[in-house]
């Protein structure tokens, strides 16, 4: 019995190690690519160990983004754009969702169910499906190449409101009644009772939405046409262009490593919140 368990564990370790290796390998090679010069990569003989050009590649990608055969936007600009976009999407969507959920759960007013269903149906149509008319609306409003145009349409979704509705429904009403007797109005109750109680859900949703915002692709690709509006994910694909073998792969890979680093660090640091949030939000 004991021996059997040991051999089974050995098998589990093997499967997990192979799984981790397959996931890590492409990222590892991107890192290796970012430490060699363009010529080494261009010859198709990239070694499996780091080279000696790491510092200069990262400095060049960070400060200029442009090499001999690639012209991109400096990473420091793209990184700022991505960070701004991700934070605005996360904070904006959480704020809007909390307010709407608060109204739907704690107030009774005409059209309440109509509003709830209007929010609910947004679950059904992802942005990609209505991409062309959405683009037209944003263009008509003069929001191309603006932070508002980049973030507002991405905030349309019911997931946040549904999550907070669930959370608020579990809050005992006696708590609010007591506060009311003490003379607290609805906004005061929201601020000092509801928000503190909802903090774990807010944190979890923030991590999910930050990653979601950082990774936006199709929408920013359409909405931003100016180079200094590029987000980092878009910027990398633009750097690739069409002449794929003759280019400064070292700079592309340095940019890629920096683009991955931020959301990966966020996910690893807040792993517990993320897992809890995912399992709760999406079910």
């Amino acid at each position, binding site marked *: 019995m004991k021996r059997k368990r040991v051999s089974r*564990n050995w098998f*589990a*370790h093997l*499967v*997990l190690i192979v*799984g*981790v290796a397959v*996931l890590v390998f*492409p*990222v590892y090679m991107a890192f290796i690519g970012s430490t060699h010069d363009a010529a080494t*990569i261009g010859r*198709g003989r990239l070694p499996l160990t780091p080279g000696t050009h790491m510092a200069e590649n990262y400095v060049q990608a960070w400060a200029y983004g442009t090499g001999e055969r690639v012209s991109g936007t400096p990473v420091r600009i793209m990184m700022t754009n991505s960070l701004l976009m991700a934070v605005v999407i996360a904070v904006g969507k959480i704020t*809007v969702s909390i*307010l*709407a959920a608060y*109204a*739907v*759960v*704690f*107030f009774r*007013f005409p059209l309440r169910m109509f509003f*709830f269903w*209007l*929010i609910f149906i947004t679950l*059904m149509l992802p942005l*990609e*499906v*209505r991409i*062309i*008319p*959405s683009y*037209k*609306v944003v263009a008509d409003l003069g929001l191309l190449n603006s932070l508002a145009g980049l973030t*507002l349409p991405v905030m*349309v979704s019911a997931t946040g409101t549904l999550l907070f509705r669930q959370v608020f429904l579990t809050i005992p*009403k006696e708590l*609010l009644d007591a506060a009311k007797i003490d003379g607290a109005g*609805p906004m005061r109750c929201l601020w000092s009772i509801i928000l503190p109680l909802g903090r774990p859900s807010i944190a979890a949703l923030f991590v999910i939405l930050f*990653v979601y915002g*950082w*990774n936006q*692709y*199709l929408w920013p690709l359409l909405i931003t046409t100016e180079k200094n509006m590029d987000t980092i*994910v878009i910027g*990398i*694909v633009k750097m*690739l262009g069409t002449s*794929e073998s003759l280019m400064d*792969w070292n700079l*592309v890979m340095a940019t*890629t490593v920096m683009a*991955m680093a931020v*959301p*990966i660090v*966020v*996910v690893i640091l807040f*792993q517990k919140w*993320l*897992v809890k949030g995912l*399992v709760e939000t999406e079910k």
Partner: protein
Amino acid sequence: MKGEATFSNKFLPYLLVAPQIIVTAVFFVWPAVQAIQQSVLRSDPFGFHTTFVGLANFKALFADPYYLGAIRLTFVFSAAVVVAALSAGLLLAVMANRPLRGANVYKTLLIWPYALAPAIAGVLWLFLFQPSIGILARALQSIGVHWNYTLNGGQALLIVVLASVWKQVSYNFIFFLAGLQAIPKSLIEAAKVDGAGSTRAFWSIVFPLLAPTTFFLVVMNTVYAFFDTFGAIDALTKGGPGKATETMVYKLYVDGFKNFKINSSAAQSVVLMVLVILLTAFQFRFIERRVHYV
């Protein structure tokens, strides 16, 4: 949603829902209505004349062999991504759910790809498999495989599937692991006492209990394969070579933003809307059923 109101303000609730309702109306309802409207109209290229054509755009769409090809491709592609990403996620979750030394380290090392954009996954795989500089492409060529996905449609599809699956495995891993941890250990012990082996216990007890998680993930992975993989395709193949990796969403993008076929792309939007609504309805049926048997 039942019960008495906690607060009795008249205007405040409208003020509270206003931001979400305005954003939804402007960026969701209006575009969705426009898509439906455009799909039954035909405009000349300069927008001077617009005529109502009924379902003609849809008829043209379903008579277009390229669109039928895109539908077929989308289903093949999605099936491959869903099956591979779910199997890999389940296998890893079952292994990580065992009481192993270092189990938490494995979990962290399997979760992080959740953080990556599909477009980034595409770039990483491009770097490995680019025919002249990719080290895995060179390795394949050195053992006699004619590897060049920029010319070979089948290879192009394969590489897009692999990059998309690679990125999605950790999402499935997270949900399967949560599902496994919710299954009472006593159930499995009981089965073993009755003489079932581990494999038998898995397929007859654990797997059926995971059914709700699996159904949920099938829906989510299908949505991912349909829509989110756009970035991976754009980074790797741009729909080519030929139309070998042009999924429905990629074709919608190309027709709408590169070829400026506004009415055809609006009709394509409506077809996708119908598909997503069917998928959502399917999901709700299963969520409802789950309530009964858990």
